[in-house]
């Protein structure tokens, strides 16, 4: 059976179908549908105020939706709230804890509700470099420490679905790498990850598929490569030669599938189809060109994002 978008089959763990949420007469989210497959990392992107947070809050059952259906591992978030939430680990954009409680007291509070052992909490605190501060009040923590504690809270109990809203927020580069590695590790162990981030390079690096929301409407959902293709975004080659002759330039112009040629000193920048790249190199070689350096830049998620959102960030 093929996967029909909006229907939950055995390969999907998140289903969002015809979701609409209206605030003060204005549609914050307008009839959006998507599924997230088991074991994939799904990036959810959109400019500020596009409806990302509303969608995440709807998935978590934090807000009442006006119409539509949301299922987590086949449990309806409204009708079987507890069972649905047993499968979720959530890291909010604004991570908050109880400042008067210690890191361990905070974690144990959440752990009891999630039925996670104290040993697992201690082990995660060690792993995330918070082993020395378990008895310190969270109110004294830096933003980065709070963010790491939030990540522990989200992943404790190895949930089936991880929903991460800006997971790198407030972290130093080391923390960013640690969180990214942890996401990959959890994903390899079977967790499905739904991630929203402003750092598009991060999304491009770790996500299997992305969804782009703009003004409450889901304008795109696919792999970055497929979306680039749909938008006719092409790779850019940068070829440095020891000498550029008119013959080389003329022979490149004769190749079909090239959109743009730009010559700068001894470098030729070419925008062309992926399939044409090999032809270009062969043609240059045949025309007597000696390639010193060759770089290819694939279309970035940033370009895809800007095209789909009309330049809004």
């Amino acid at each position, binding site marked *: 059976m093929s996967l029909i978008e909006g229907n939950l089959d055995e390969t999907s763990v998140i289903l969002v179908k015809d979701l609409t949420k209206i605030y003060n007469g204005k549609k914050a989210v307008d009839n959006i549908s998507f599924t997230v497959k088991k074991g994939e990392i799904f990036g959810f992107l959109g400019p500020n105020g596009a409806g990302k947070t509303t969608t995440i809050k709807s998935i978590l059952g934090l807000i009442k939706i006006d119409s539509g259906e949301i299922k987590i591992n086949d449990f309806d978030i409204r009708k079987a709230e507890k069972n649905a*939430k047993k499968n979720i680990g959530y890291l909010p954009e604004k991570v908050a804890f109880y400042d008067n*409680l210690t890191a361990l007291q905070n974690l144990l509070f959440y752990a009891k509700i999630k039925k996670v052992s104290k040993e697992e909490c201690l082990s995660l605190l060690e792993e995330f470099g918070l082993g020395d501060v378990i008895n310190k009040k969270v109110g004294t923590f830096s933003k980065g420490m709070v963010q790491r504690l939030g990540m522990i809270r989200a992943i404790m109990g190895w949930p089936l679905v991880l929903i991460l809203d800006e997971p790198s927020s407030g972290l130093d580069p080391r923390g960013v790498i640690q969180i990214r590695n942890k996401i990959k590790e959890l994903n390899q162990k079977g967790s499905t990850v739904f991630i929203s981030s402003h750092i598009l390079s991060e999304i491009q690096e770790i996500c299997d598929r992305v969804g782009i929301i703009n003004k409450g409407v889901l304008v795109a959902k696919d792999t970055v490569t497929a979306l680039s293709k749909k938008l006719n975004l092409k790779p850019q080659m940068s070829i440095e030669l020891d000498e550029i002759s008119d013959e080389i330039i003329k022979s490149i112009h004769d190749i079909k599938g090239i959109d743009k040629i730009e010559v700068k000193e001894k470098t030729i920048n070419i925008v062309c189809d992926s399939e044409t790249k090999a032809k270009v190199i062969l043609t240059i070689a045949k025309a007597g060109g000696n390639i010193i350096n060759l770089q290819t830049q694939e279309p970035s998620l940033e370009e895809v994002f800007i095209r789909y959102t009309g330049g809004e960030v």
Partner: protein
Amino acid sequence: MLDIIINIAKKEFIDNIRNKWIIIITILFISLTLLASYAGSIYSEGWQDLGSTMSVMGGLVNFLITIIALILGYSAIIGEIEKGSMDSLLSLPAKRIEIILGKFFGLGIVLTFAILTGFGTAGIIIGFNVHNVNYVEYLIFIGATILVGLVFLSIGIFLSCLFRKRSTAMGSAILVFFLFTILWRFIVVALLFFINAFDIKNATLPDWYLALNFFNPINAYEILLSLNIPSLAMQQVEAITFGYTSFLNTTNVLIALILWLLTPLILACWVFKNKDI
């Protein structure tokens, strides 16, 4: 369900027992009760019995307990929503009703702890210095105080669920405080004279006027005390002058206070269940 409520209640207790306002008001309780016992009577010197102490403290308790309960309650829900921790709590397999009940019980224990510590410490010190102490009356006094405290805690939590901003919830809690502790007396007396229902010749008050006492938990609390603690009955001018009508009895007043406790709590559960976070 019960284990989640207990877990949330335990967290609330640990989180709030170190609240500076709770500590300040508990110390104030102890100090005032001891002061009331030692210097509360103008007719005699030295330590007074608990009856005299309660009659002095009765009026102060109205203010202090109402404040402490509303402080604990008004930010219980909206405070967490504004801070951001409610998102995480609600992403866990915990129902909203469990969160409300957990918070009510946890904060209720904090309140009870403050009352017991305040009056208990003073009661023990007075007991060592005064003979023939009537501890039963003192226990009724403490029990009724806890009950009225829980009523205002319940109201506070309801206000916390009702509003979208912590500042609005605080404003409404202040309004509730002034309404029940100060304004109420003026409103009902004004109503009485406006309707001209006071029969001055026979010195009787209409039943509807006396029934209004059920609509103010502080009045209900005062009547409960005066019905069960003779030394406090002297304070109730209406009781001495006009006598209580038959429906103002201990059972009915207790039912009124329990309804005052349950109604805002049920409303809080309903409002919170339908609230967008």
